């Protein structure tokens, strides 16, 4: 019996709507506490996918750092965690073990894996879909525990079509979680974001290969801290209601709306991935028919659900209500919940940055200035200092409060890509005190 963190669900919202109001917004906070570090850990599987295309040797330090980082990750694995290392180019091949399976982490397998890593040769192109397909095969025999992959690339997905990649992502969604890393500046932020989003993981840039070791260790440690896999947010809604969107808004923006799966009568399940001791916030928007002034509705009933062990029922870990109450008191219906406002702004911030950078690439400098100006303003309002610092490498800020900016002339590619990659990272607001 594996010990499990304790989950709590909290809802922040203004339930009051005007007489004809139909849109209900709420921030649903999920918190898991007390994940056992020393207690019997959950079964876990880890696949490390390293880009071994020819470009990894320009400069040579990229491949060397990636190998060292992967070796560090192998050392960071908890004893008994099943793992494998995959090298990716036009196709994927096993680095360790030689055959397509996972082996338990112990002294012997660690040493052999680290030795095998030193023999990795870089040649050929990039077909990320084929790498993920191999990872998925490897996880096949380990679907009842934590499944996590690290995917490192330095280039664009040039040796397969978008359709091929999309098909693999569709196939792999829900099968394992993947954190993606782009090393150097020749990869495509939007492409890697698509991969990490589909696989419920994070994406980041490691501009300097020297930083890969620290980053791989941190990612592996985080993966080892996960105690529950395949958590889902079940959202029940009333008859004639529609879920407009479900977005993770902290620690990063991730739209889950399209990920809905059947969750029983009048309910849909949205995948939340694997959990350790951590907290995340979600923005839920439901459209309900107005029931009239004085009436109150359960606009959504949210439940945290995990699959049961083999042959057992799924389990509900926590529940909470999202309400709608109609009033003709404008003072009540016009009040905007502070957390809803905060995260609405943070989601807009991510959009503004991505649109602004795209406009800049397209040569539409007016649009770029306007969107990045808006981003500066939103980051300032929310107190999102890390994003503000990144924005200042791309624009000169004249007045943050009004979003008055000038595009900088010489912008380092790494700075632009860092801003793009990290645009979805949000800062939290605390739940209401007391």
């Amino acid at each position: 019996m594996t010990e499990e963190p304790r989950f709590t669900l909290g809802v922040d919202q203004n339930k009051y709507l005007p007489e004809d109001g139909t849109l209900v917004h709420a921030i649903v906070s999920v918190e898991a506490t007390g994940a056992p570090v020393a207690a019997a850990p959950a079964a876990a599987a880890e696949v490390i996918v390293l880009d071994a295309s020819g470009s990894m040797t320009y400069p040579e330090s990229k491949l060397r750092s990636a190998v060292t980082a992967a070796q560090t990750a192998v050392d960071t694995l908890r004893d008994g965690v099943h793992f494998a290392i995959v090298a990716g180019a036009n196709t994927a091949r096993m680095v360790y073990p030689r055959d397509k399976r996972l082996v338990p982490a112990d002294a012997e397998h660690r040493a052999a894996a680290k030795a095998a890593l030193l023999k990795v040769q870089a040649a050929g192109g990039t077909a990320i879909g084929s790498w993920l397909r191999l990872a998925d095969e490897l996880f096949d025999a380990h679907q009842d525990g934590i499944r996590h992959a690290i995917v490192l690339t330095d280039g664009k997905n040039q040796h397969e079509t978008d359709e091929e990649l999309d098909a693999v992502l569709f196939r792999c969604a829900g099968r394992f979680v993947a954190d993606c890393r782009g090393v150097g500046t020749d990869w495509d932020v939007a492409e890697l974001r698509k991969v990490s989003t589909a696989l419920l993981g994070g994406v980041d840039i490691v501009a300097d290969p020297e930083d890969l070791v620290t980053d791989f260790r941190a990612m592996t440690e985080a993966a080892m801290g996960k105690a529950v896999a395949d958590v889902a947010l079940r959202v029940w809604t009333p008859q004639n209601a529609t879920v407009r969107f479900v977005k993770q808004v902290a620690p990063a923006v991730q739209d889950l709306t399209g990920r809905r799966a059947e969750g029983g009568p009048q309910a849909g399940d949205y995948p939340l991935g694997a959990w350790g001791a951590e907290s995340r916030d979600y923005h839920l928007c439901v459209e309900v028919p107005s029931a009239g002034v004085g009436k109150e509705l359960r606009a959504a009933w949210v439940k945290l659900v995990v699959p049961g062990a083999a042959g057992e029922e799924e389990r509900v870990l926590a529940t909470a209500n999202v309400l709608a109450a109609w009033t003709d008191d404008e003072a009540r219906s016009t009040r905007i919940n502070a957390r809803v406002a905060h995260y609405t702004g943070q989601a807009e911030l991510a959009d503004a940055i991505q649109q602004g950078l795209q406009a800049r690439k397209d040569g539409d400098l007016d649009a770029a200035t306007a969107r990045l100006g808006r981003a500066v303003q939103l980051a300032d309002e929310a107190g999102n200092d890390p994003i503000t610092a990144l924005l200042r490498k791309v624009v000169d800020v004249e007045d943050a409060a009004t979003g008055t900016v000038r595009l900088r002339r010489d912008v380092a590619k790494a700075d632009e890509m860092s801003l793009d990659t990290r645009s979805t990272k949000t800062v939290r607001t605390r739940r209401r005190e007391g």
Partner: protein
Amino acid sequence: MSTVQTAEAACPACGEVVYPGEDFCEACGHRLGDSPPAPPPAAGPPARACAHCGEPAVDDEGYCGHCGLKQPAERDHLEIELPGQAAVGVSDRGRRYPRNEDYLALAACSPHLIGVVCDGVGSSPHPDAASRAAAEAGAAALRDRLAAGDDPAAATRAAALHAARAVAALAPSPADAPSCTYVSAVASPGQVTVGWVGDSRVYWVAASEPPPRDPEDTEDTSALTGSRQLTDDDSWAALMVARGALSEAEAEAHPNAHVITAWLGADADEVEPHVRTFSVDRPGTVVVCSDGLWNYLPDAAALRAAAGSPATPLDAARALVGHALEAGGRDNITVTLLPVTATNGVRP
């Protein structure tokens, strides 16, 4: 430990003992079902049917599993009546407040009809408990006193003080004191007696208005002829008007207008109920109500017009509450009607 009474059934509204064959509770007038009150819903099915969509899907939290509607609490809308609609009462949560903090009670002690309305003070803890305790205690005490032969004025005063003690007893400390207003009316043969603390009111609504009075005549203020208000609020506005500091309109417009200057509760000064007795020699209706009604219908003529000429007293009470709801329902709305007719003892 006191012995537990299991042989007798209790009124589901007030808990008073009721007996087989009674259609209404003697104490509070709550209509008793043909079958004993249903026990609280046990865990598991069958689920209650939704008041909105009708699906039998109401869960333990009170929400419909089909349409999501929060089911109305029992107190959200109450209708009570004495046999034959000798007296009726309607109470409604209104459209603004999350719960109904008003309460009402009816009782009969032949030939007297009794109506009590209490309005919980919103700024106090558990105002809903205060209003219920006061209305039930007041009506029961009035009935008992009248049955014991007290005259209505003495019974009215004693009942108000009894209600005050019942409310004060709810408070764990004076700093944590549930409180409410209190108003009672007793319609007796040829006589109407009212008693109050706070700003809940009694009106007399005549069945037909008398011709305009000759200004030369001296008015007998203790005789009920034309429709009028029978109580004077214990409120800041009334106090200002009484002192001549403000006109009625000025006082009503002031933000403090509805601050009450007397109430029942452990934090109240010594309770001094006002008691008035009126003679009556013509048919009409005694209207006992909370400010959720009179805010929209402050004068007796408006009240008379809003009630219309419905078929039954219950329809009249529903019409009055409906009027307040239509007008906005900003507060809980409660009204009891004690009809005075040739058959229930008015002097010919």
